[in-house]
Structure formats: structure tokens, C-alpha cells
């Protein structure tokens, strides 16, 4: 029997996920705005047979709310400007042939018709390789770019997100697969009976449809989610094809994995319908000692006060700079933003008995994701260990800076995984659903008619 395969995503957190990674001598710090670099790294992971790339997003300058209030201490933070990811995916689709293309788009400050259209368009441009990472906007910085003084409450945001999802996938089914005839002789462009009004009326949206884009080569774009809170897990179990998560401890990861897949069963979905991909940050060396040296080299670029700033979005509004760096992490007020990430950081600090300085430096290094410091063999073994323990179906590879650490991962770790028989040497197909082993969703109208006919 063929061994269970793991999936790999390139989580592109440009110009580097490590808060000071861009200062590394090998780093290309223009990686935030330079399309040529994005094209280069995407083609590189495509050659390495990654399932997909993935872009996170925020519709604001990070920290802009604080800066608007006069706090100008953030000029050392690098993830300030970037290319808007759904637009970027279109351009990357044009210069690649197999790699999946996933980007975040918020349900909080968009209209479902526009989002449905845009992702289905990317799916057409790419020949069935698009994915939508559905999020609710959790960053306080965003609200004021969209006419709100404060951002929307966590529960309300999720209620809107759930309805938003229903509208989007409903619109994606507007056209049955054989609706476009384009019959020149008869003069019939489309079969009217195979195009459907959604006619959605809900608490948040009223959308008639039909969408003015047909279904794609993979039916619908893949839907990804990253919410790990209670509401987030429930929505993911019901709707997500892919779940991104931050997990640092294998037991926790196994519990999360079992929980999400268990919840999915309640919605009539099987465990294989959801691909769970925790993030990992590799720090590679020819020996374990060299890898550790490289990690220390990176951490040396990070001043303590900058590390502390990385905690600001999960501190629940508490000003951590008022607390002693060598004391414990203080009690944090509940956060309306990233609930699950806050819990993870607090748990890590408490369990490992870390000081405020230590937990801040740890968080700044990988934004809460697991850091794997070691040789290619060690990292491959760790990934396989999690795979076998049902702690993950695959991993999102997040890099401290670009492009060198990603090149190293593709050249050194991927062959190790292939040697262990857990990673493809050729793509199975051309669509993202094929790479991930996901089913093509049936068109609801076609299915209904078939049912009625039986």
C-alpha cells in the first residue's frame, strides 16, 4: 500500500515571518513589493511539487491604529506594505502551471458577490488552482479603513462569516457545468434552464445572483480557514477543505486534529474532506549545532522592545512595556481579536515557565508557529512523526526571510521527504483539489434534478 502522503504549502509571509528576518545578510528586503521575487519563489516551490502557496492578508497597515494615535515606535516593523494577495494570485497564475494559489479575503469588509466572482475568476485564470482562505477581520487596524470606529464583535463577525460563506458557494453553483452551449449555428449561447438564481435573503445579505462566472475546472475554489477558536473550529468543520493552524506541541496538535475532524462528522463530512496543515518555520543547518547557530544569529537581530511589539495584537489591549522583562507574562485581558492565538501564547509561556522577554522573543521569531531548528533529516523526521501521529495532514512552511530559507527547504528537506515515500515526486493532476485529494463539489441544482429524476 502506498504510504500516507503529506501536503506542503508555502505560507509566504514576506518580507519575512521573523520580525527581524529581513535584516539577515541573505534576506531580500524588497520582497514585500517586488513581483519578480514572488514569481521566483512560487516557481521554485512548484518545481519542488508543493501543493500550494498561501498568502495571509490584512486590509490595513499593521499597527496603524496605534500610529494614528501618535505612537511612532513601530518604524522597525517590516510587514507594512505588500501586494494585495487576491490580485497577486492572478499574476502568479499566469506564470505557473500546477501550484495551488490560496489567499485570504475577509468576510467582514467585502461583499459576497465580489468575493465569489474574484476567486472563481482566479480559478479560471489558473485552470482550477485557486483557494479562498475565509477569515473574519480580527485586527483593530482595519475597521477604521471601512468607516467603523471599532471592529466588529467576535460572535457577530462569525455569524456574518457563516452567512457570507453560504452566499459565496451558492453563487459558485449558479451555472450547471453544461449551461454554456456557444452553439454558433443555432445561435444559442447558453441554456437558460441551467443558470440559477440564488435568491438569498438572510440577516446580513440579500443577493439574487446568478454569478456572472461559471464553475471552474475543480468545481469550486478550495476553501481554507484558520480560525482555531470555538466558533472558528465549528465553521471550519462545517465548511473548510483546508485548515491552517498554529500548533507547537504534538499532543495539542493531535487533540485539535481529532476535534476538527470529529466535528466534521456531525455535518455529514468525512475525515478526508478536511486537510489540516499546521505552520512550521524551518531553520536548517548541515549539523544540529550549525542550525542552532543560525537561529541564534537571527535572534541576535531582534531587540527586546521590538519583540514585545509582536505581542501587541494578542495582549488584549494591555501595554506590556510597563511590565518587567524578566518577570512572568502578566494576566492578559480577553482579546476580541485572535482568541486562539492568545491562548496558545499564554499556555506556552506558562508551561515552559518563560519570562516576558522569553515569550516575546519566542513569539516574534515565528508569530506563534512551531520552529524546527535542525538538519534536513531531523526536520523531515519531525514532519513524518506528526503525520503518523495524526497531528497533521501536511504543513505550511513559513520562512524567516526570503528567498534563501525556502530554497534550502526545497533543496534539502523535500528530497528527504520523497526518500521517505511521504511526498510526491510528480503532481497527480493539475487542480488544487487533485493535489489535496479533495472531491469536486457537486452542483446543487444538477444533483437535485438527478435526484428528482431517479
Amino acid at each position, binding site marked *: 500500500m502506498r504510504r500516507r502522503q503529506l501536503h506542503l504549502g508555502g505560507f509566504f509571509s514576506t518580507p519575512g515571518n521573523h520580525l527581524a528576518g529581513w535584516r539577515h545578510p541573505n534576506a531580500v528586503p524588497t520582497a514585500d*513589493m517586488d513581483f519578480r521575487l514572488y514569481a521566483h519563489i512560487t516557481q521554485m516551490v512548484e518545481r519542488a511539487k508543493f501543493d500550494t502557496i498561501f498568502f495571509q492578508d490584512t486590509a490595513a497597515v499593521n499597527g*496603524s491604529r496605534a500610529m494614528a494615535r501618535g505612537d511612532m515606535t513601530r518604524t522597525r516593523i517590516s510587514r507594512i*506594505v505588500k501586494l494585495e494577495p487576491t490580485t497577486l494570485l492572478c499574476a502568479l497564475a499566469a506564470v505557473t502551471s500546477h501550484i495551488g494559489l490560496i489567499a485570504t479575503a475577509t468576510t467582514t*469588509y467585502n461583499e459576497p458577490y465580489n468575493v465569489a466572482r474574484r476567486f472563481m475568476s482566479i480559478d479560471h485564470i489558473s485552470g482550477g488552482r485557486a483557494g479562498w482562505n475565509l477569515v473574519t477581520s480580527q485586527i483593530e487596524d482595519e475597521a477604521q479603513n471601512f468607516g467603523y470606529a471599532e471592529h466588529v464583535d467576535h460572535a457577530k463577525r462569525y455569524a456574518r462569516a457563516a452567512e457570507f460563506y453560504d452566499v459565496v458557494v451558492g453563487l459558485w453553483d449558479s451555472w450547471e457545468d453544461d449551461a454554456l452551449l456557444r452553439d454558433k449555428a443555432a445561435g444559442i449561447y447558453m441554456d437558460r434552464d441551467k443558470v440559477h438564481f440564488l435568491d438569498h435573503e438572510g440577516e446580513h445579505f440579500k443577493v439574487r445572483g446568478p454569478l456572472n462566472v*461559471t464553475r471552474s475546472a475543480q468545481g469550486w475554489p478550495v476553501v481554507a480557514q484558520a480560525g482555531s477558536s470555538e466558533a472558528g473550529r465549528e465553521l471550519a468543520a462545517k465548511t473548510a477543505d483546508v485548515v491552517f493552524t498554529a500548533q507547537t506541541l504534538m499532543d495539542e496538535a493531535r487533540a485539535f486534529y481529532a476535534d476538527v475532524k470529529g466535528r466534521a462528522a456531525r455535518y455529514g463530512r468525512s475525515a478526508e474532506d478536511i486537510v489540516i496543515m499546521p505552520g512550521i518555520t524551518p531553520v536548517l543547518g548541515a549539523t544540529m549545532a550549525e542550525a542552532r547557530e543560525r537561529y541564534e544569529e537571527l535572534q541576535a537581530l531582534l531587540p527586546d522592545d521590538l519583540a514585545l511589539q509582536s505581542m501587541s495584537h494578542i495582549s488584549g489591549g494591555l501595554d506590556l512595556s510597563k511590565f518587567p522583562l524578566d518577570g512572568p507574562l502578566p494576566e492578559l485581558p480577553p482579546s476580541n481579536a485572535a482568541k486562539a492565538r492568545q491562548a496558545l501564547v499564554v499556555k506556552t509561556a506558562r508551561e515552559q515557565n518563560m519570562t516576558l522577554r522569553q515569550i516575546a522573543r519566542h513569539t516574534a521569531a515565528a508569530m506563534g508557529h512551531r520552529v524546527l531548528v535542525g538538519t534536513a533529516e531531523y526536520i523531515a523526521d519531525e514532519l513524518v512523526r506528526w503525520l503518523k501521529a495524526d497531528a497533521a495532514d501536511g504543513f505550511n512552511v513559513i520562512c524567516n526571510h526570503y528567498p534563501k530559507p525556502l530554497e534550502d527547504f526545497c533543496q534539502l528537506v523535500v528530497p528527504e521527504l520523497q526518500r521517505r515515500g511521504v511526498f510526491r515526486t510528480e503532481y497527480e493532476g493539475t487542480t488544487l483539489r487533485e493535489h489535496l485529494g479533495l472531491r469536486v463539489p457537486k452542483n446543487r441544482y444538477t444533483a437535485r434534478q438527478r435526484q428528482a429524476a431517479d
Partner: protein
Amino acid sequence: MIILPPKASTMILTKPDKPKRQLRFGAFMNVPSSHPTGWRHPDAIADTDLCFRHLADMARMAEHGRLDAMFFQDSVAIPGSAGLYGGKPFNPRSGRQAHIEPVSAIAGLAAITSHLGLISTCTTSYNEPYNVARRFLTIDHISGGRVGWNLVTSQAEDEAMNFGLDAHLDHALRYERAAEFHDVVVGLWDSWEDDAFLRDKESGVWFDHTKMHFLNHRGKHFTVRGPLNVARSPQGRPVIAQAGSSDVGMELAARTADMVFTAQPTIRDGQAFCAEMRTRAAKYGRGPDHLRIFPGLMPIVGRTEGEAREKYEELRELVDDEVGLRGVARLCGGLNIYDYPPDGPLPPLPPSNAARARQEMIIAMGKRGMTIREIGRVLGMSQAHRVAYGTPQQLADDMQEWLEADACDGFNLLFAHYPKPLEDFCLLVVPELQRRGIFRTEYEGTTLRANLGVPVPPNVFAQEPAHA
């Protein structure tokens, strides 16, 4: 009249010492065909609406022909869906049903072209300015400064119902929102000065906060703090295009647009429109170089006059009366044109809340004695734009005449179907224009502003450099 009668080619003499004014071209992309049933033509590739590979091939052709830009039309609904929803019959012959969202399409095309301008329509009625500012500026970076935004207000009832509304917004309110939307977008585009990002590895300082600017916009329709999370454009700011030819539309264009698209049936109309636009623009301190005017033109090219006429007639044969009449009905301001005999005259029309300038044009056709069906055939072929058929020389004569009479800066080219008429224009007409010295043989620059010859606007927030 819309149709250019063929005439003998004449050489127009110009003074040799004066550099000739140059024509500019946009390729209007209304896939699968600008002629609503043009997709049925034997040469037509019918799936240009959803197949990106065809768009890519056409972009390469347009770039080979040194055209200024490709310009994508858009609507956020299936045209006619409001009527269909209300129980009206649906015309299955019309090709414009589904298409790749054009802002996404031009982002894809940016990656495989190097000089061609890429313009897409995006409505101000059903979007948020922060999102629109971000997407266009992103494509501007991907393309190295070749993007343009065709700012429109949504005038189709079809669209409103996809965004929670039962009817579309009133004309005046829509334009008021559009004007404020424009100001927010352009303001956000200046969030960062060109040298704001230091990326200094040594000191660890990423940006200079004195070169970052909050917009802090508070208006009737929008409250937007900023800054935008995209650096400033390689061409200063994306090009703004507009197509509104109503009074309020022209005023907005005069103040804000770099390019104006318009339907002008005769050279005299074109001259009047150009003069009017330039007078209005002057009020805002803007000269002829700030605003390029592109009337629409559907060229039908033949190697001989006979071949061109044959092609023209073949396309007229393809016009679907139902589509034509629907085109008329849309401009009738609520009057039900189907109550009138199609072979009779056009009745007096109540003012339309939708496309006012178009309505005035069909009223003018009616006054010239055209029947409802005939008007419909003309609208049905080219969406009320001018159609010209002839040899490359004849078409060059026509365009040169418009250019020299100051009736245009160039043309937005409509194609009855794709890709053959676009190829014909690039391979047959462009060389003739180049031979006459009225069209570039190489691109002037790598940005859309450089090729259009419109200025790079200064950053509104930047301090004037101190004089020594």
C-alpha cells in the same frame, strides 16, 4: 450616421518641421464579442470570455501592435438578469453572460506583458474605496506602472440586486458617491512618499514615519483613515479613465480623469466634445496633455474595399433584432418601446436615469429618420459606437482626419468578435499609421502615463523641496 462610407484614399500634407500629433489606441475588451451576437461569426473564438489563454494571446498581439492599452468593460451581474428575474423572456443568443472578472484578468495579463497598458472597469457603487485603491495599486506594482482604473457608477438594474438593493441608486447620488470615492482612492494612493521605505538592515529601521500619511477622510459616503498598505505607484498613480458623457459625468472627468472614453457619431460631434471637455478641464487647471480623449470606433478592415464591405454586411446579417431592440429599450427612460411598431419612428422619450448621453444619441438617430429597428441594428452591432469599414488606407484616412481636426486624441477600438478583428487592426492598419508618422513604432516608455504622455502627479502630502 454611424457608418463611415468608404472614400478614396488621399494623402494629407502636413508641414515637415512640426512633429505630427500621434494617435493613441485602446483595445476595448467586451468578450466574447462587442457585437452582441458577433461570437457566432465563423472566425470568432467563442470562449474568450472565460479562457485566460485567449486573453493572453490577444494582449501579446496588442503589445506587438504597440497599442496603448487594453481596456476591459465590466458589470457585476449577468446583463438582463433583473428582467429575467421579473419573468421577462431571455435572449439566449446574447454572448455577454459570464466572464473573468476584469481586475483579476488584467492582474494576470500584467505578468505576461511588458509595455501594454492594462485598464479595467470597476464600479464605485458596490465596492469599498480602500479595497479598490489596494487592488489597482497592486497591479500597478506587478506591471511596473501600466495600470488604469475605469471609474464607473453602476447604471444597470441587474447589479443592484446582487448587493442587497432592489433598485439601483439615483443618477445624482451615484455620481456624488463616485466623486467622493475617487477622492478617497487617489488620497490613499499617496499614503507613502516615494522614498518612505528605508529597509536599512544596519539600523533595523524599515520606514520613515514622516513620509507616511494618514488620509483621515470624513465625508458623506465614506470615513477612511488610511494609510494604504501598498507603496506608491511606479507611475505616480494609476491612470484614471472615465466614460460618463452626461453633464455630471463630464464634470467629474474634467476634474479627475486622465483618459475619457466616449461615443461620438461624427467628426463634428467629436470636435464639440473635445472642445467642451478641454474647457471644463481648464477650470481645474488642467490642459490638453492632462486629458486624452478616446471616442469609440469599430474598425472593419479588408484588404480591398469590397472585402471590407462584405465583412461589414456579414456582421450586419448577424445582428439580432431582439438584442437591438433591447438596446433601444434600455435607453428609453422607462417608456416601453415594445408597445411601438419596430418599423415605425422613435417616439419622444422621457429622460433616462441610466446612460443619458446614449439616449441623446438615439434621439438624434430618430430625428434623422431611422426606424426603431434600424436604430436597434446599429446599437446591436457596436453598442452605439461608430463603425468604419474599409481598407487600411481608408481607415487610416478616417482616423487621421479626426486627429487633425482635433476631434480625438485616439480611439478606443471595439471589435465585432475576437481575436481576428484585433489581429487585422494590429497587422494591417497599424503599419499604415506608422508609415504616415501618426503612430508610434516603439513605446515611448514602460509606464502607461509615459505612453499616453500624461503627467506624473506629485504626491499631495509631500513637502515641496526647499530651494537653495
